[in-house]
């Protein structure tokens, strides 16, 4: 029985760890930056000790500069950001890795918040973290441990387009047997754009993420995570403000291997997000409080030895968002496009990522149409795999690529065979 369990666990690990990409996690209904219960190389960004469970590999996430808003860029499904790197085992058993270009959306969006007030446009955004270098190291002693250092620094002294940005952060993690724990510390972050109309500045004050998980059985896991980032921002229109981004997650994930080539995934979690901009005196406070209990059901199946398909459906069992002071602080958007093309960034945060109301007039509402379906595929060529999202192409080839199948009329496009493609080679 014990042997069967070991073999089963090994197969489970093999089938799930064999793929590794943002596209895979997204197709399984997870955050593209990592999962708390599905093994994937992306989990390094939550817990660097995961490097000990990964073999030698090279991964390339296709893309370019992403969706740019002035100096700021975000990793959109329709405009992905290029990144990639190598993880490698040294002869003494230690693991090392370097990944280039991983720039998180949250870091970009907090800078976007600091970039504008009522009238700022996209061209006036602060520079996002750019040319990021992540270095990983890990090993096994009494526990599996891992550490990461993130570094980014760029500037322009050219008159008319001056900016500076830098940040430094470290991630630490450990796991042993059934438990794992991780910590992120933001050691410093700064951004300023003295030639932008509103002369915005951003200075990180405190940033940390702490979390962990425990395996109730080889198939099920509970996990918890809390992150908090605060900053000071200033410009020449409004007075100095303080911003904060807080998010907490408590969840349960279950993985069930149903046959040699197939696994089912299920997850339920409570997510609470609070984003706040506080004026030191006077002005209306702007904030978003979001509470959701999304349930995820997913599958991954080796359809052929060269093809693995996966998909998921996510819906909130409970989901509300309450916003306040958005219009007063960020103006009224002229159209829906305003959310992504102009400087109404707190709303972009709220609408695009946190499901706030589009009116910005304040109040509380249910997160409508929270049901999302994603799908993905991996083309496997031995040690080489090509991951991607499928069903994200709209029926019209002149339309914009979207992130979920249900926003594109359910099209399986063979010309855009995969989107958000990643190429992984294990060696």
């Amino acid at each position, binding site marked *: 029985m014990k042997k069967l369990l070991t073999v089963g666990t090994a197969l489970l690990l093999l089938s799930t760890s064999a793929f590794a990409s943002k596209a895979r996690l997204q197709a399984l209904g997870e955050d593209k930056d990592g999962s708390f219960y599905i093994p994937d190389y992306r989990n390094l960004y939550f817990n660097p000790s995961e490097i000990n469970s990964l073999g030698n590999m090279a991964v390339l996430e296709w893309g370019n500069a992403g969706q740019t808003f002035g100096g700021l860029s975000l990793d959109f499904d329709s405009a992905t950001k290029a*990144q990639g790197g190598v993880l490698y085992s040294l002869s003494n058993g230690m693991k090392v890795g370097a990944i*280039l270009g991983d720039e998180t959306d949250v870091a970009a969006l907090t800078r976007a918040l600091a970039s504008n007030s009522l009238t700022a446009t996209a061209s006036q955004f602060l520079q996002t973290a750019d040319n990021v270098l992540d270095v990983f190291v890990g090993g096994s002693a009494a526990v599996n441990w891992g550490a990461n250092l993130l570094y980014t620094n760029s500037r322009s002294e050219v008159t008319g387009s001056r900016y500076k940005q830098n940040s430094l952060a470290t991630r630490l993690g450990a796991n042993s047997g059934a438990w794992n724990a991780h910590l992120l510390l933001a050691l410093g972050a700064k951004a300023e754009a003295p030639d932008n109309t509103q002369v915005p500045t951003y200075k990180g004050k405190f940033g940390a993420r702490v979390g962990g998980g425990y395996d109730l059985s080889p198939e099920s896991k509970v996990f918890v995570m809390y992150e908090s980032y605060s900053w000071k921002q200033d410009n020449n229109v409004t007075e100095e403000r303080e911003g904060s981004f807080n998010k907490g997650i408590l969840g349960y994930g279950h993985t069930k291997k149903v046959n040699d080539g197939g696994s089912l995934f299920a997850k339920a979690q409570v997510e609470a997000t609070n984003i706040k901009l506080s004026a030191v005196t006077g002005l209306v406070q702007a904030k978003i409080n979001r509470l959701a209990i999304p349930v995820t059901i997913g599958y991954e199946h080796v359809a052929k030895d060269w093809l693995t398909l996966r998909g998921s459906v996510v819906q909130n069992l409970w989901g509300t968002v309450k916003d306040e002071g958005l219009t007063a602080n960020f103006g009224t958007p002229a159209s829906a496009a305003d959310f992504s093309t102009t400087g109404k960034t707190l709303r972009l945060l709220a609408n695009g990522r946190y499901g706030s109301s589009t009116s910005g007039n304040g109040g509380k509402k249910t997160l409508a149409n929270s049901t999302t379906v994603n799908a993905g595929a991996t083309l496997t060529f031995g040690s080489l795999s*090509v991951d991607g999202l499928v069903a994200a192409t709209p029926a019209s080839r002149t339309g914009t690529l979207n992130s979920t199948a249900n926003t594109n009329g359910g099209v399986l496009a063979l010309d855009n065979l995969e989107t958000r493609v990643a190429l992984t080679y294990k060696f």
Partner: protein
Amino acid sequence: MKRQTLVIAGLALLSTNAFASKARVEALGQDAAHGSEYISDSRNVFRNPAVLNDTKNYLVTEWGTAASSDSATAPRAEGGFFREAGSFAYGLYLGNSNGLDTTNRNGTNFLNQVNAMDLFFAGDMGVKWGAKLHFASSKDETGTFEKKNSAFGLGLGAVMGAAEAYIDLTLSDKSTGATASASHEWKQKPSFLLGGSYAWEGTTFFANYASSKYEVKTTSTATTKGSAINVGAGRTMEINPTARIYTDVTLKLATDEVAAGKTKTTKLPVTLGVEAEATSWLTLRGSVSQNVILNDTKNTAGKKSSTANSTDVNAGATLNFGKLKVDGVIGTTDSNRAATTAAEKGVLATDNLLTRVGVTYMF
């Protein structure tokens, strides 16, 4: 054991030399014009003609348009063949240019270097040596003023075991007569790329120095000077006979000087690449590169700025049909087909299966 090692080394050499295209070199994050300093590819013959001793008996065609300039998104048609003759080897290549294209010649004003031809000759006399002659000539008498262009270049190189040395000289490149006047002139002064490399313990250390100067004489004379020093190291890690990991780091120092002043760039790009034979008929490859630590451009006013979004992921594939190989870049087609330009948006498009295609036939 020794025989096994030889067989594996032979297979590895075969697998790496079997490809030859700008697409492959670009997908691995290398210089498409001159090839790579450390990755074996027959495109390297444009850097060091002595490489012809190891890469011969093939014909290559690079698909593209009949254009003066060449880029990944708008490739220029070119191609040639390379063949052995006893202990020598020779080659003829059509359409290659030196990179100082329409932009540097004020667009349609001066005649560009067109219908260029490169002749190669190489031999192995204990030391592998090679030479390349570059020639282009054209004229247009149909306009108000006669326009002419002529260009002549010479490349020399040697391979001595683990060491390589090369020089690529542009002896002359002159365009006389312009749309506005017969006396206008674009002229490149003798320019060169000089370099060498040494492979030690599996790592290739390389350095090269490039210097170029050209003048544009109209009602006044504008001179542009450029120089670049690259010092770096690259390593090819053979995972198995069908797969390789490539890593390199290069310190790049460059200066461009015009009348307004000098522009200096200091960069330290790191490149990580992978190439693997996915199946007997398909080879996939890709790379990521990014400037790390050093990433500054100092403009003519002395102000520095970083290169934004320097992270670059490239990918490519080769369709193998025995002696025929179809190389190309993948991942450069936008999901939106209304776009007329290429875009790297993370899309695997099967209608535009490969772009910047190069076909190689080995004989």
